[in-house]
C-alpha cells in the first residue's frame, strides 16, 4: 500500500524522531511510504486562532500537494482533525487523511505491530483525537499488544491538558493551571512514560514536566510502536 506521509511542520522541526518512527513502523508493516517535500503546514494554528483567510490559503496549498494520494497518514491527531473537519468549511475538498493509529487499526487491521517496550506507560487521549476523530480505544489496543509494556490507566484522562494551541500563550496562566492537574494525575500512575498521539499536547505537558524536573518521559505513541 502506498502512503503519502504528512509529517506536520511541528514534527518536522521539533520532533523528527516521531517522523522517523512512523516511517520505520509503516515500512515494517509492508507499506510504501512517500514524502512530498512540497508540504509545509496544514493551517491549523491560523484556523483555530481566527486567521481564516491565511488558513484558507494554506488549506488550498495542502490540497494541491496531497491531490491524488490514496491515503495520507499523519502522526498528529489535531492536524488530521484540521484537514478532515475544517477543510470543508474552508471550501477545500480534504484528501483521505488518517491519523496513524486509525490507519493501523482501521485500514491495515493490525493490533500487534511487533513492538517491544519494557516500561510502565500511561496514555493521555488528546481532545482532538478523542472528540473530533473519535479514536476511542485504537491507541490503547495497539499499546496493549506491545511486548513488555505495562499500560496503566490515567485518572481523569479525558480532561484537556490545557494546551489549546495559541491558548497556551494567550491564556498561559489558565493553561498552566490545567497542566498542573494533568501532571498530578500522570504522577499518580507512577508511569515511566506518558504517551499520546499529538506532539503539540506532549510538548506542553512535557515542557511543564521538564521545568518541574518531575521525572516522567513523554513520548509519541509512534516511537513506542516502532521500538523493538
Amino acid at each position, binding site marked *: 500500500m502506498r502512503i503519502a506521509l504528512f509529517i506536520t511542520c511541528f514534527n518536522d*522541526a521539533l520532533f*523528527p524522531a516521531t517522523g522517523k518512527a512512523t516511517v520505520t513502523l509503516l515500512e515494517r508493516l509492508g507499506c510504501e511510504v512517500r514524502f512530498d517535500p512540497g508540504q509545509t503546514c496544514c493551517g491549523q494554528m491560523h484556523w483555530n486562532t481566527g486567521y481564516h483567510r491565511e488558513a484558507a490559503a*494554506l488549506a488550498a496549498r495542502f490540497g494541491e500537494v496531497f491531490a491524488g494520494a490514496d491515503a495520507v497518514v499523519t502522526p498528529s491527531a489535531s492536524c488530521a482533525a484540521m484537514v478532515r473537519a475544517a477543510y470543508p468549511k474552508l471550501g477545500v475538498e480534504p484528501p483521505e487523511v488518517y491519523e496513524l493509529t486509525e490507519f493501523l487499526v482501521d485500514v491495515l487491521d493490525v493490533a500487534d505491530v511487533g513492538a517491544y517496550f519494557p516500561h510502565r506507560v500511561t496514555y493521555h487521549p488528546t481532545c482532538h483525537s478523542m472528540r473530533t476523530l473519535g479514536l476511542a480505544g485504537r491507541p490503547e489496543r495497539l499499546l496493549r499488544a506491545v511486548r513488555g509494556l505495562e499500560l496503566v490507566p490515567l485518572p481523569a484522562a479525558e480532561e*484537556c491538558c490545557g494546551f*489549546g494551541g495559541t491558548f497556551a500563550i494567550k491564556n*498561559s*496562566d*489558565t493553561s498552566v493551571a490545567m497542566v498542573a492537574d494533568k501532571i498530578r494525575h500522570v504522577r499518580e500512575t507512577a508511569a515511566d512514560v506518558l504517551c499520546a498521539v499529538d506532539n503539540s499536547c506532549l510538548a506542553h505537558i512535557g515542557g511543564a514536566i521538564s*521545568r518541574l524536573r518531575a521525572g516522567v518521559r513523554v513520548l509519541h505513541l509512534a516511537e513506542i510502536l516502532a521500538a523493538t
Partner: protein
Amino acid sequence: MTPSVAGPSGRPPKFSEAARTALADTQLRRNLAAATHTIRERRAAVVDEVADWEDLRDAGAAVKDRALLRLDSALEELERSVVEAGGTVHWARDAAEANAIVTSLVRATGETEVVKVKSMATQEIGLNEALAAAGITAYETDLAELIVQLGDDWPSHILVPAIHRNRAEILALFQRAMPGVPPDLTDDPAELAAAARAYLRERFLTAKVSISGANFAIAETGTLVVLESEGNGRMCLTLPDTLISVVGIEKVLPAWRDLEVMLQLLPRSSTGERMNPYTSTWTGVTPGDGPQDFHLVLLDNGRTGALADEVGRAALRCIRCSACLNVCPVYERTGGHAYGSVYPGPIGAILTPQLRGVQSALDASLPYASTLCGACADVCPVRIDIPEILVHLRGKVVESRRHRPVPTPEMLMMRSIAWTMGDRGRYESALAQTVRWGRLLSRGGRIRRLPGLLAKWTDARDLPMPPRQSFRAWWRRR
C-alpha cells in the same frame, strides 16, 4: 444601538487578566472544583439512565431551530395567545427599553418593593440596578441569588450563581447582611436555608408585584414556564397581584407538546435531577387565581443580530442548563467572574460577544477563553457546537482588527508565518533558522526562555532543544 449586557462595573479586564486573579484565589478554586465535579458526576449518572438521550438531544435542537428559523411568526403567535388569555405584551429592543417598561409598570402599581424569581434576562439588562435608581427595591428570592445580592457580589454561574462561595463564607455573609438572622446560626446547610426561608417568607407575604423571567414561552398557547427547585418561584408567581415577566425572544417554543422534550433534557442536564421539583406554568390571567395583572416583556437586546449569523445563531438554542460550565476545564479553574458577563463559561464565551459585539478588549478575548477541547459540545442538550462557534467568532475578532493602521504583534506574526508556509523554499529556510536559533537558545538540552510573544510559553514550560537534523533533512539523506 449597541445592546448592553450587564457585566461588572468599570472597565472590565480581558479574560486572561481576570483569570490570573481568579487562579490565585485558592478558596475559589477549591469551591469550584468541588461543586462542578459534584454536578458533573450527577448529570452523567442520570443521563446514562436514558436510553434515547442522543435522540432527545436531536429533538431538543430541532424544536429550538423550528422556533428560531421562523421566529417572527412564532413571536406574533405568542403575542396573540398571551393577549387572548388576558395578558399584556411589550416589546423591548434593548436593555434600556426593557428597564424603562418594567420601571413604569411597577410605578403604575404604586409599589416600591418587588420580589424576583431567578432570571438571567433581568440580570442581563441590569434590571435591579435600574429599579433601584427609580427608588424601587428588588428582592431576589432564589437562595443563591439572595446570597449574591446580600454580598453585593456578582453571579458566577448560570444555575448556581453563588457557586464560588462555600457555607462558611455564606454564614459570615448572613450574619453581616441578613436582617433578623438567628444569633446561634451555624454553617449547617439546613440551618442556613431555614434562616433564608424565614427572611424571604416576609417578602413573599408583603409583596404586591413580582418579576420573573421564563425558561420557555409557548407560542401556541401563550403559556410561560419556569423551572426552579426551591418553591420561591411558585410563591412569586402566585401570591402577588401583578406579575411582570421579562423573556428573551429566543425562549419561544412552537407548541405545548415541545415541553415534553425540554422537560426531560433540562433537569438532567442542569441539576442532574430526573425531574424538576417546581415546574410552574401560567397562561395570561385566571380570574380569582394568582396575579390579576400580567405583563410579558419580550427582549431582543442583540438576539436578532445573533440570529442573522448562520453559524452563531445556534447559540440561541441555549436553554441555560449550565452543563457546559460544569464540564469546562477552563471555567472550573477561573470561575465565572473572569468572563465579565452574566453569561460565563463556554456558552457565555459564544453568547456575550454575539450580544455585545467584539469591540471591547474583554469581549474580543472571550472567544479565546477555551482550549477548544470540546467537552462542552459533548454535553450540550440542544447540540450547540460551541467550539465551532468559538472559532467562527475568533474569525470575527481577527477581521475586526485587519484594518488597524498599526497591526498587532500577533497579526504580524500570523501573517509572516502564513507567508513562510506558503512556499517550500521559504519554509525550508525558516526551518533551518528555527533549528539554528532553537539550539543557540538551549541550555542543557532544553530551551528555558523564549523571546517576544513566545515568552509566555517559557513562563512555566521548557521546550526541547530542536534536533540538528529536521525530519526532511533525514529523509533526503536516507
